[in-house]
């Protein structure tokens, strides 16, 4: 029916085709920018958190209650198998691995240097939990048999002047705070492209290292817990904490990596401010279009009131125009966004040109090779709701103005 409110509103919208198209474009590009910025943030920060979790202590870490304040190797947790079993019972947990992390001194006959280390069980871990395993460019990880050995970052090996198969001596403190030493052969060299890792990371096999430190066979530095979705880290940490009790502390990744958490929070805050500004600008454009359109039709509104429209019906008609704008604008936004989003999610933008000599951008010790997009569905839904709401809200004042038209005045003056 041509005279229904929706049909009338639709036709009114296209009286000034160019103006409507410009408004729709502004809504569309507003949605585009909001989605792309959010998607890049969601994917980038999610990847950074996952990477930090894989090369650190997982999304959630079960560790000694005092480790967070005094991170020494004497702060260990016993009963790692039971803790791992308990963690795996949580529906959000996908993998659990025991680890020991800390610092040591590595020396050759001529040189010595400090480094961080991760001692892990090669039978349990691969790149899904320890992503730097993918970066081994020479040799390999120590045999699963648990023979002593060490994997060094490429820059670290270069600084020490050692190659594959050469012996180094590492020194650290054991469970009781005593200095302990072990001579091991370099079984692998890894090159991640991240300066911090290449120049200061060593990998050790868990079992022999436990013996070196005087740990029991079920005693580790931490139980690293990996989740299917890193955003559930706090909830999982709370649940596990309740189950673990006083035996150990359960901390989420952001408590272990406050620098990374702070960086992400700051960037997300900036993105949200920018999105609000974009949406406000879009809302101003829509308001302008609708208000102009109402002001131009004052005489018509007077006539419509004369022939029996109620002020409420006029209000509804203008709101209907606003809803049309919102709906088509959202569709336009989806159409504009689809292609670039697909490209960014599948291909991404190579950041090598912006990066350091190794071709990676490093933030808080986490290296990124490309900018990619991947929006969380609830964020996409929020953007759609916000865009719709702002468009519809922008129509309220013009619609109220239409409802307040004085028919006598408008028909006489116009």
């Amino acid at each position: 029916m041509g005279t229904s409110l929706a049909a009338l509103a639709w036709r009114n919208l296209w009286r000034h085709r160019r103006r409507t198209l410009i408004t729709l474009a502004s809504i569309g590009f507003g949605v585009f920018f909001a989605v792309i910025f959010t998607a890049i943030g969601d994917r980038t920060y999610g990847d950074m958190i996952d990477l930090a979790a894989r090369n650190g202590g997982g999304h959630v870490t079960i560790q000694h209650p005092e480790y967070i304040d005094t991170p020494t190797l004497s702060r260990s947790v016993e009963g790692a198998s039971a803790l791992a079993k308990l963690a795996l019972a949580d529906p959000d947990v996908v993998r659990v691995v025991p680890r020991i992390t800390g610092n040591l001194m590595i020396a050759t006959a001529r040189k010595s240097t400090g480094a961080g280390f991760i001692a892990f069980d090669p039978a349990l871990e691969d790149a899904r939990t320890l992503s730097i395993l993918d970066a081994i460019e020479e040799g390999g990880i120590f045999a699963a048999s648990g023979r002593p050995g060490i994997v060094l970052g490429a820059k670290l090996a270069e600084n020490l002047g050692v190659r594959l198969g050469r012996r180094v001596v590492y020194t650290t403190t054991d469970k009781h705070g005593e200095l302990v030493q072990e001579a091991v052969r370099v079984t692998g060299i890894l090159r991640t492209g991240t300066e911090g890792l290449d120049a200061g990371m060593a990998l050790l096999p868990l079992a022999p290292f436990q013996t070196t430190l005087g740990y029991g066979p079920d005693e580790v530095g931490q139980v690293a817990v990996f989740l299917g979705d890193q955003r559930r880290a706090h909830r999982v940490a709370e649940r596990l904490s309740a189950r673990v009790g006083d035996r150990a502390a359960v901390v989420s990744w952001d408590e272990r990596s406050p620098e990374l958490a702070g960086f992400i929070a700051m960037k997300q805050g900036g993105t949200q401010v920018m999105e609000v500004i974009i949406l406000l600008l879009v809302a101003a454009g829509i308001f302008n279009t609708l208000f102009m359109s109402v002001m131009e039709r004052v005489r018509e509104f007077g006539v419509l009131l004369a022939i029996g429209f109620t002020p409420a019906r006029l209000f509804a008609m203008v709101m209907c125009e606003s809803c049309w704008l919102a709906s088509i604008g959202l569709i336009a936004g989806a159409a504009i966004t689809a292609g670039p989003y697909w490209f960014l999610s599948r291909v991404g933008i190579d950041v090598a040109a912006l990066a350091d000599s190794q071709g990676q951008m490093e933030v808080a010790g986490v290296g990124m090779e490309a900018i990619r997009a991947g929006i969380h569905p609830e964020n996409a839904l929020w953007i759609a709701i916000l865009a719709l709401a702002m468009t519809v809200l922008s129509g309220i004042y013009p619609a109220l103005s239409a409802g307040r038209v004085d028919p006598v005045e408008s028909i006489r003056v116009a």
Partner: protein
Amino acid sequence: MTGTTIVEVRDVTRRYTQGRVTVDALRGLDLDLQSGEFTAICGPSGSGKTTLLNLIGALDRPTSGTIRLEGHELGEMSRRERSHLRRDRIGFVFQAYNLMPVLTAYENAEIVLALQGVPAAERKARVVKLLDDVGLAGLEDRRPDELSGGQQQRVAIARAIASEPAIVLADEPTANVDSETAETLLDLMQRLNRERGVTFLFSTHDPRVMARAGRVIRIVDGRVETDERH
């Protein structure tokens, strides 16, 4: 073919205040209109013709006095009730046609029936016949900018009478058209008055309208000066 009294105007005044200037557009005006009348209100500019039409049309409220349409006291009605009264019982024809530019001739004529909630099939039957009656058969799908001034005014007349109102208020309906078109429009309205019993009340300066009217009321300075039936 006149019948019952449908409009009663009693001691109506309408005072406008703009800044420090106060204008009395109507000053204690009394008037009765019967159904089926073909009445012209004339008088010099500013005499109160359009003000009277606006008051009878429930578009405006009197400063004092009462106006009844089919027994309903307009001053006591809410804004919504007045909207519904206009929709159901009053038709308007304006000097500048005032059709909805985004609607076709058919849709413009149909809009009041749609507002009333008349079923689509009934609307179609009534509007097609009505447009045929006013000489617009075949032009149903044209928009106002594709019609001549006379044709637009015919659509406006069709819109005004589509809901079979108690009265059609026409404010200078022939002022924007040439003589020939004006005569044709008057022929049409007179025929609708005769054949359908539609009550018309015009405000006009046009001597042709006054010559055709069955009753001519002359207003001067907001009061009825003369009231003549032909």
